[in-house]
């Protein structure tokens, strides 16, 4: 369980070459898909908003991203006077590299045989696979945080503090749902997680974690990932109306392009991670033709669904307020995901135990909510009466609005 068959035997030059080729192919494929994703998002959101969208460069404007990239590349590269130069230059790369590294552990297809080597269609299959995803997404905070700080400017700093607080808060919920998946899989490796979702109930309902765990962890993971990506409706980082452009306000030229690239790359990789964790990754029926191609097609289709959903979210949902965002993360998602983790654990032991625990959770949750409400009520009444009786000195302060 969990060993890459490529490294089992003697490591020859052939193996090293295969690894290098895998890295290069993954990188190029990801770059091209980012290009297509940006075009897809602009085109789709234009359709949803009754506009035309990019339609000049290439057929259907598909080369618009390339044109924008070239334009950004040749723009003047500004570095603000009050910035911390080294960190300012480093930050875009700190955002980009984790985005790519997450993609390396995602299985995008089955197993193929090349020159006598068994090659898994993913760049790396470490035994700690899914923890690597969590690690890299927690490292991605650095890029955002340092970009805002090193700009030496007010709005980027506020934007980056918001962003990092948001990313750290939602990481907890994300980690707990991943733990739920790991609990039923019994392994941390991404390929094992995919393999554990093979098969079906009654011959037609796929045995995906989405169904196997109840739909709750999937929804929590989807929300947490959207917040982690700073995508709408959780894009408070770059709330234009309040913060100009958020943490990358001071960036221009190619460094700005790198942030943009990282954002879309993250969207794609995280969609791929959702597919791996909850939708069986490249699993699917093999219909006709060469058998290695169908898993890749299924993978691309499933990922495409989530990419569409992200654009849809952006077009349909209004942005949350900051306190709503934090409340959702800490007071709703983390408790529910923790309770669900315990529930899945109990179900693993015995069904009776699980259902008893479920009942206990409902009763305890209700009692807790009531207690919080009562506490709040009594607090408020106290304060209002105190302020009414208090000295007129405080009253004079209130007039400056």
């Amino acid at each position, binding site marked *: 369980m969990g060993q890459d068959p490529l490294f089992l035997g003697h490591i020859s030059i052939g193996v090293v070459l295969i690894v290098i080729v895998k890295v290069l192919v993954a990188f190029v494929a990801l770059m091209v898909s980012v290009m297509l994703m940006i075009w897809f998002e602009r085109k789709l959101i234009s359709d949803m908003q009754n506009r035309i969208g990019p339609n000049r460069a290439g057929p259907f404007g598909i080369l618009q991203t390339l044109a924008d990239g070239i334009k950004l590349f040749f723009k003047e590269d500004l570095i603000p006077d009050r910035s911390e130069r080294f960190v300012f230059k480093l930050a875009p790369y700190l955002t980009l590299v984790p985005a790519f590294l997450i993609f390396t552990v995602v299985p995008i297809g089955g197993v193929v045989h090349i020159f006598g080597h068994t090659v898994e269609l993913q760049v790396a299959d470490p035994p*700690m696979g899914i923890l690597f995803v969590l690690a890299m997404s927690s490292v991605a905070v650095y890029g955002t945080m340092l970009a805002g700080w090193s700009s030496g400017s007010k709005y980027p700093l506020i934007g980056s503090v918001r962003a990092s607080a948001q990313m750290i808060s939602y990481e907890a919920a994300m980690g707990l749902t991943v733990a739920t998946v790991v609990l039923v899989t019994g392994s941390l490796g991404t390929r094992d997680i995919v393999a554990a979702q093979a098969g079906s109930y009654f011959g037609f309902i796929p045995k995906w974690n989405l169904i196997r765990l109840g739909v709750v962890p999937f929804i929590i993971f989807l929300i947490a990932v959207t917040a982690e990506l700073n995508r709408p409706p959780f894009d408070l980082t770059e709330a234009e109306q309040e913060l100009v452009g958020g943490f990358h306000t001071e960036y221009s030229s190619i460094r700005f392009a790198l942030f943009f690239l990282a954002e879309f790359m993250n969207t794609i990789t995280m969609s791929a991670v959702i597919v791996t964790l909850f939708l069986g990754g490249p699993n699917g029926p093999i219909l006709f033709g060469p058998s290695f191609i169908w898993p890749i097609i299924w993978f691309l289709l499933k990922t495409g669904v989530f990419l569409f959903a992200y654009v849809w979210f952006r077009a349909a949902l209004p942005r949350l307020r900051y306190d709503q965002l934090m409340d959702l993360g800490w007071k709703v998602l983390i408790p529910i995901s923790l309770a669900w983790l315990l529930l899945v654990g109990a179900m693993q032991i015995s069904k009776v135990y699980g259902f008893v625990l479920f009942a206990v959770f409902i009763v305890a949750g209700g009692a807790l909510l009531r207690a919080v409400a009562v506490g709040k009520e009594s607090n408020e009444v106290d304060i209002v009466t105190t302020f009414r009786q208090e000295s007129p000195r405080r009253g004079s302060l209130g007039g400056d609005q």
Partner: protein
Amino acid sequence: MGSLLLGVIAKPDLIVFLAAALVVVAGGIGVISYRNPVHSALSLVMTMFGIATLFIEQNAQFLAAVQIIVYAGAIVVLFLFVIMLLGVDRAEVFSRERIRAQRPLAAVAGVVTLGEILILGHATWATGAKAATGPVGNSSDNVFKIAQVVFSTYLLPFEATAILLVIAVLSAVYLSKRVVVNVDEALEAPLEVASSSDEESFDEVTTPKTSSENDDEVYEV
């Protein structure tokens, strides 16, 4: 060229160890030699990554991942938060010692720690086996091994640590607790009074709102 390449890939362990050790040492030196605290914190992150690589080299994959998630992903991020928000992010002057005899004491402590590491690396009395003798075994059963040890031999320390963490969280919540007024209700309740008496009481009640807003502005550095 070909033979050199063959020689290099024949000893992947050595190459990985040398690269990771270089990263660890360079990061460590960076932590103490940079003038800017943010740069020092970043060097610390570099050291963490080097150590994680060394863990993978020893087949302790789980520890490596946890090293990154906990230390690089959470603790140093907190350091950076504190450094940035408290506004100590400027170069320090090292000409004057804050504590008397700071440097000689640091040197002594360094030598003692080094000696301790060397002794512990060779002795067996502390853990029953030599430290870092080799890989822990098959890398995929990491989690099972750790779980077995944590939930059997070291259950009590584990639970104690959990309680400690809960206490820390609770006290942090308590310390940072600010009295929050539900502004809507606070405004509504006395409004009935205000309409009957005079408008002064209306001003009184808006006070908590303005004061809490002022508290929030601490973040605007």
